[in-house]
């Protein structure tokens, strides 16, 4: 009955193969009454999460969102409703749109190479061909940058690229850059450096996440595929990749959401600068804009709240799109896999 369809829905996040045997065995229609009682535990188990969330996250958030409809700024204590004025005002601000653009640019420049490298290295370390020594040490080292606090990371990199005695600045001048150049006055170099810092900080994190995913794959799947005569390339492309897809999707979604809200490094590094025309700034992300609007100058919480609502909506749209894309991919992949299995006379 109902449960059957719900089960197939529940496994939608899963990409086929590893799961196939389990889904097949799952439906044993006995002890129906008992199952119903047991399922109440499911509700019980999510209660702590939602209670705590409601109190510590939802309430503060609703409070903040409500501010976006008011004239709450500075130390003003008589708060009045003003409708959507803050939203329309924000939409006319080139600085706000630029901050959105900066966020996307910095994210793309950091995320694409990060995922690529993470995938390559994760594959390298989990593959069993080369009995590499010191895999653990390498993995450990790659994660180290993520442990450092953003404050010290920002200071460290700032010093490295600072004119006239930063180590990397000097290296660049030896490679032909004019000694007059101040990288921190130039929009693109500033963005690239920030993207690089982000890459450097998060590469190890992504790699570990992906490794954990690969290690979690049931080895018998590989064995089976091998017995079936699949080539290594096929195994990687058609088994490893699809099986770690949930983890890749996880990384993709979390990184994208994290990337859209990136604050620490852009704020600490150049505080959003260098300045562009029309009041725009070259490395100011949306989160930095929100922070500056709310906590410096006129302290316009209402504007900052409206900006966070915009950001929220954008995050929603982006993740919705991401899920749609990855989901449709999964279905295709599953079908392809089924065809393959059928052709070869079945694996599992």
């Amino acid at each position, binding site marked *: 009955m109902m449960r059957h369809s719900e089960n197939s829905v529940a496994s939608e996040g899963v990409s086929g193969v590893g799961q196939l045997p389990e889904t097949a065995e799952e439906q044993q229609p006995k002890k129906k009454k008992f199952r119903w009682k047991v399922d109440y535990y499911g509700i019980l188990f999510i209660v702590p999460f939602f209670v705590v969330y409601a109190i510590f996250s939802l309430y503060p958030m609703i409070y903040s969102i409500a501010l976006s409809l008011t004239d709450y700024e500075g130390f003003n204590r008589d708060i009045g409703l003003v409708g959507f004025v803050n939203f329309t005002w924000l939409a006319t601000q080139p600085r706000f749109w630029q901050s959105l653009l900066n966020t996307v640019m910095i994210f793309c420049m950091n995320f694409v190479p990060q995922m690529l490298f993470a995938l390559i290295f994760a594959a390298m370390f989990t593959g069993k061909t080369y009995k590499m020594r010191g895999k653990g040490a390498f993995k450990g080292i790659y994660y180290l940058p993520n442990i450092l606090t953003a404050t010290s990371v920002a200071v460290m990199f700032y*010093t490295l690229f*600072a004119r006239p005695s930063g180590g990397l600045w000097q290296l660049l001048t030896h490679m032909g850059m004019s000694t007059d150049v101040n990288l921190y006055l130039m929009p693109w170099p500033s963005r690239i450096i920030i993207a690089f810092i982000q890459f450097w900080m998060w590469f190890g994190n992504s790699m570990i996440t992906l490794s954990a995913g690969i290690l979690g794959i049931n080895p018998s799947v590989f064995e089976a595929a091998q017995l079936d005569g699949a080539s290594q390339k096929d195994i990687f492309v058609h088994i490893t990749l699809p099986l770690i897809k949930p983890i890749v999707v996880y990384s993709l979604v979390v990184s994208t959401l994290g990337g859209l809200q990136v604050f620490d490094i852009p704020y600490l590094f150049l505080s959003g600068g260098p300045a562009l025309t029309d*009041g725009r700034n070259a490395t100011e992300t949306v989160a930095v804009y929100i922070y500056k609007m709310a906590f410096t100058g006129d302290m316009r919480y209402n504007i900052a709240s409206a900006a966070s609502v915009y950001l929220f909506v954008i995050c929603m749209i982006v993740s919705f799109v991401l899920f749609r894309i990855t989901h449709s991919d999964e279905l295709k992949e599953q079908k392809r896999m089924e065809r393959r299995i059928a052709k070869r006379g079945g694996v599992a």
Partner: protein
Amino acid sequence: MKGKRVMAVALSAALLGTAAGVMAGCNNRGDKLIYWVFDRDMAQQVRDYYATEERNLGYEIEIETVPLESMLTRLDNALRTGTNLPDVVALEAETFKKYIDEGAQFLEPLDEYKDLTANMYDYTVEAATGPDGHLYALATNVTPGVFAYRRSMAEAVFGTDDPEEIQKHFDTWEHFLESARTLKNFTGGGDYPEGIKVISSYMDIGKVFCGSRTQGWVDENDRLVIDASLTDGEYSMMEVAKTLQTEDLSHETTSGDGTYYSDVWDNKVFGFFQATWGLNTNLKNNCTDSSGEITSDGDWAIIPGPAAYFEGGTYHVVIKGTKWLEEAKEFVKFFSTDETYLKNWAKEHGDFMNNKEYMQDLVEDETANNAFLGGQNPYSIFIEQAEKINGEIITRYDSEINSTFEAWATNYAELDGKAPTIAEAVAQFKNAVAASLTSITVD
């Protein structure tokens, strides 16, 4: 199996730990006067001069030392919710004005001390007076800026290290630039193979120009005002900055960077624009290289330089509704008026305090001569500069607008080929202000 048990034990231990930890965090705060300060030195002064055993206050002072930016965020939160407020707060000149403007809402007026202000520097009193005419803060120190230079270089280049003679070479921006060119072309027979840079960071002139304006950033109707000294003419801030940059007269560092500080002892840079406290913290603390072999200690002297300006300053306020009203007021009064404290502190740190009479005493006091400055007594120059400071130019927007203006002045000075004209840079500066400070009207 073993793993499972370990896991279970670890988890329950963690849960117990949580409970225990949180319980431990529940003790009540005793009855103490709470003082927030952004500066360790200031905190130490409270321990050394005020909350001492001999003075026996009869109550305790809880001193919380938090970096300035964090302290302000904390203070804003506390003021907004009206909870967890301190009793006395030390604020800093560039950011304190917004609290004075909101004084009626958040601060205790200190009007009974108005008669004590006769001996204080006028600008500190002006700046601490709210729009409603009440006095809301007292300044501990006064922070006029000077130009500090290397005696040995002055001797080599200008033939004398006497401050009065050297001042003649730096008394206007025109002379300043001329001398800068002389310094740049001076090699001293190989002693200075690359010549001498007049200052380390050319944008240091920003604080000099901004501190010597005749008009603040906004008028009484919150309209943006750009003082003519910043943009108009050959010796405006923007042009002087561009000249320093394009003619390679500065060392092209950024104020506060590592190289900026190593320039203090490294024989490349002639001088620094520094306020009173900066002579001690920025120059004296950095005047010797790590091997201890190269030092510029004692090789310095100060002159008024091309303009009188100020930078920084510590102000004390009493938070409205404090349970310790009398004690808090007494505290604030002490740090702006106590003779022993003010004089000792000035001598110990070469600092300049907020009392005309006592500082005048120090001019004649040989124990106030400063060894770092080659035995020069800095107080007559401090007094001369302090008298010229105009407190009306202090507004609540200073820290933000100053840095925005400096950013566009930098763009004008540096972006060869792509640099905006002055008119363009000013227009863009206005756009930037409009985009960040909505309460200001920008024409």
